[in-house]
């Protein structure tokens, strides 16, 4: 066996192969490399392996995404530096945030606190209008996703109640204001539908759940705002 090794090392064909291999792989014409590899198993292994490594490298997937904190930090820094010179109205920013990036935990907590406050208002309103049947649209928002915690399920149901209440009162809204609210609700319903579709494929994806609950929380705020506007 040692004799075989020695023979190969001393083989001028192998030495030439090694000398030209890098250039050959870079596309420089060097037909001797391929010719030699056809005759020498050891060199053909190297050539095939290196070609394979190069091919697999081209196809490495971009399956990694940074955590939401990266955008939160970028956003906060840019805001502090005054780069956001053109800001959308409050509701448009919330909707954009719902469809693009999860907000920071304190913001979500604030949204939830606001939600709890408006629930109290709406519960009373719903009770006062008890004879009125909820008018639920057959949208994605009327579905309660499975696998949510008790608090999350309550949030979803409360938002649905709020939507029913909004539907019952929407005719009293100023048409231009109604158009704005409808646009916001449609956008959020689309986000909710996207989340529900994703959850069907990936039931345990916590990020999607977080998006979903944020979308519901934001929807609750829009509905609360609409009802507050309508009651003026």
């Amino acid at each position, binding site marked *: 066996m040692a004799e075989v090794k020695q023979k190969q*090392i001393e083989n001028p064909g192998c030495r030439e192969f090694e000398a030209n291999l890098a250039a050959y792989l870079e596309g420089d014409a060097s037909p001797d490399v391929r010719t030699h590899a056809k005759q020498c198993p050891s060199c053909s292994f*190297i050539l095939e392996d290196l070609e394979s*490594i190069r091919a697999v490298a081209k196809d490495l997937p*971009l399956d990694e995404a940074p955590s939401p904190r990266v*955008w939160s930090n970028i956003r906060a820094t840019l805001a502090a530096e005054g780069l956001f010179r053109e800001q959308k109205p409050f509701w448009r920013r919330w909707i954009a945030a719902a469809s*693009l990036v999860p907000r920071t935990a304190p913001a979500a907590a604030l949204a939830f606190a606001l939600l709890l406050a408006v629930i109290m208002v709406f519960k009373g309103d719903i009770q006062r209008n008890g004879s009125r049947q909820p008018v639920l649209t057959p949208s994605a928002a009327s579905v309660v996703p499975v696998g949510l915690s008790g608090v999350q399920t309550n949030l979803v149901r409360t938002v649905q109640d709020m939507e029913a209440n909004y539907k019952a009162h929407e005719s009293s809204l100023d048409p231009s204001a109604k158009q704005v609210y409808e646009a916001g609700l449609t956008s959020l319903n689309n986000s909710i539908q996207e989340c529900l579709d994703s959850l069907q494929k990936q039931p345990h994806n916590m990020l999607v759940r977080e998006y979903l609950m944020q979308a519901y929380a934001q929807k609750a705020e829009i509905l609360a705002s609409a009802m507050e506007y309508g009651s003026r």
Partner: protein
Amino acid sequence: MSLQKPAASAAATETQLITRAQRGDEEAFAALFEAHKRRVYSLCLRMLGNPTEAEDLTQEAFLQLFRKIATFRGESAFSTWLHRLAVNVVLMHLRKKGLNQISLDETENSQGEPIKRDYGDDDRRLVGSIDRIGLNRAISELPPGYRTVFILHDVEGYEHNEIAEIMNCSIGNSKSQLHKARLKLREWFQQHQIQFGRSSPARVAREPKEGE
């Protein structure tokens, strides 16, 4: 033909987003981040091998980009500009950490042990066992200089003249480092085949193909 429409449409959308971001529109910044975050983060993660550092540098690359976005005139593709910026951010970080990026002396292999070619019993054919998961791991274990050149050339598709410019080295040096990196990766697969006993027999009998 039908494939060109979405591409043209996407480019138009990106141009609109850039224009809006140049006016300071927050939504446009968010959309640009969303569109490019995976590619930038993947690059940082592959070059650094550390998720926390990769996130910090992704953040830094986007911040630098957004601060300069008013100066973007579209001479090169936006993604190219961003990518180049991300590469520079990573290289600067590695330099600060004192990690040697590339040997400027081609006669000396400063990236560790010289790469040996094994003959005889230890020579194995690896085709078929070189997969994406293994390659990702092998890349993460390359010495920094080899890793950078390999990622830039074979993964990200930079040309040697571009790498030479980015890395401040000669084109020949970039080519040489790339070849050594590929040999190192092959060596990694050989070692791990031995370790996990996945390999086919030490030397796979090569059936002569018809016409050979």
